[in-house]
């Protein structure tokens, strides 16, 4: 059973950050949906619900998503459904159930760098930046590579452009955690392939993305999918072996490429 000594709902982001860093075992609790499955001992739980961070807006060339926005809001937002071939909304729609997605938040999903995250994979295939209170605004890719440091994720920015994208996932059953997920996007001739649930956190297949951006022949899709599966590392857990994930990566990347090519 988890323990929370004190529960605080700060009125400003600065206050939230100061409480967070004032003691080692103070923590931002996000949507709190996963708390019950662990035995964390939290001194002060920092709840961001009073900070007005639950919004999705389209402004100044970016789609902005507040950290306290729920995954259900992401799934149903007309802004996200109608952008980037709906890839962000599609990526969250198989996460457990609607009742769960009405609780879990974007900020917690991204900041925790969960390996099984579907949302991170989709965001990574787009031009995504995150804004942290202390570290400022940084590309998502950089954030995922950094060692863990206490901070408060405030919002996510996705550059608004004509990027077409596709999200593919492999699950034992709908609503289960993914065994593997893939997101592919294309802006003119610039391609990005992101692979997640490896089971490590999502990463960009750089060589495959570059090769695709230089030359693309529809007959060669399997070739690029092979490059992606070869350059990334995969691991084994209770859902699948590294070999299985690597083999399935080729399939999902190829499917995603085909879907993006068909996007209008």
């Amino acid at each position: 059973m988890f323990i929370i000594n004190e529960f605080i709902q700060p009125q400003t982001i600065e206050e939230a950050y100061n409480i967070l860093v004032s003691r080692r075992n103070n923590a931002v609790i996000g949507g709190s949906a996963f708390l019950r499955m662990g035995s964390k001992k939290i001194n002060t739980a920092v709840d961001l619900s009073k900070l007005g961070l639950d919004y999705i807006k389209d402004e100044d060339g970016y789609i902005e998503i507040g950290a306290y926005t729920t995954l259900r809001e992401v799934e149903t937002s007309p802004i996200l459904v109608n952008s980037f071939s709906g890839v962000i909304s599609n990526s969250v729609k198989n996460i457990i159930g609607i009742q769960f997605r009405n609780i879990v938040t974007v900020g917690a999903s991204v900041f925790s760098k969960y390996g099984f995250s579907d949302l991170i994979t989709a965001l990574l295939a787009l031009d995504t930046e995150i804004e942290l209170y202390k570290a400022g605004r940084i590309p998502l890719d950089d954030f995922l590579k950094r060692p863990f440091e206490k901070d408060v994720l405030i919002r996510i920015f996705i550059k608004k452009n004509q990027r077409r994208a596709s999200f593919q996932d492999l699950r034992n059953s709908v609503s289960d955690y993914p065994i593997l997920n893939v997101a592919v996007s294309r802006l003119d001739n610039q391609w990005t392939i992101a692979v997640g649930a490896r089971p490590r956190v999502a990463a960009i297949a750089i060589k495959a993305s570059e090769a695709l951006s230089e030359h693309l022949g529809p007959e060669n899709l399997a070739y690029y999918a092979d490059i992606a599966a070869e350059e990334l590392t995969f691991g084994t857990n209770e859902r699948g072996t590294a070999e299985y994930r690597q083999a399935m990566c080729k399939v999902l990347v190829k499917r995603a490429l085909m879907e993006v090519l068909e996007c209008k």
Partner: protein
Amino acid sequence: MQIEIILNGKKVSLDVKNNELLADTLRNYGVFSIRKGCDTTCCGLCTIWVEEKPVLSCAMLSVRADGKTITTMEGLQREAEEFAQVLVAEGSEQCGFCSPGFILTVLAMKRELKNPTQEEIVHYLTGNLCRCTGYLGQLRAIKKYLGVA
């Protein structure tokens, strides 16, 4: 910590611990329609409405419910009974253990989706597991209740 909620239309004041989950708080208060069926936040049996949205009460901290409007099966008796009669008529009431969470989700769907397709209905209900596995009967009943093909 003291919280105040509007529970099924009535203002209620409750003393809760910081790590207490809403499903436990409400059951201790006597709201027995809430069931706990999985311990892994995946079965939907503990579904309640918070501000009219279906959520898992087993995954929500009670302290976070402060100031919120909570609706459970006890607060939707007329609508729940209407749908339950359709469930019985279709032979899909089964053991009944998952029914409160399932019915609350169906009633939420009725408010949220207009003329949903079968695919949309199934998608909306993926978070509600039925150990009797009588999904086809449930689906028949939902379509009949919503008046959709």
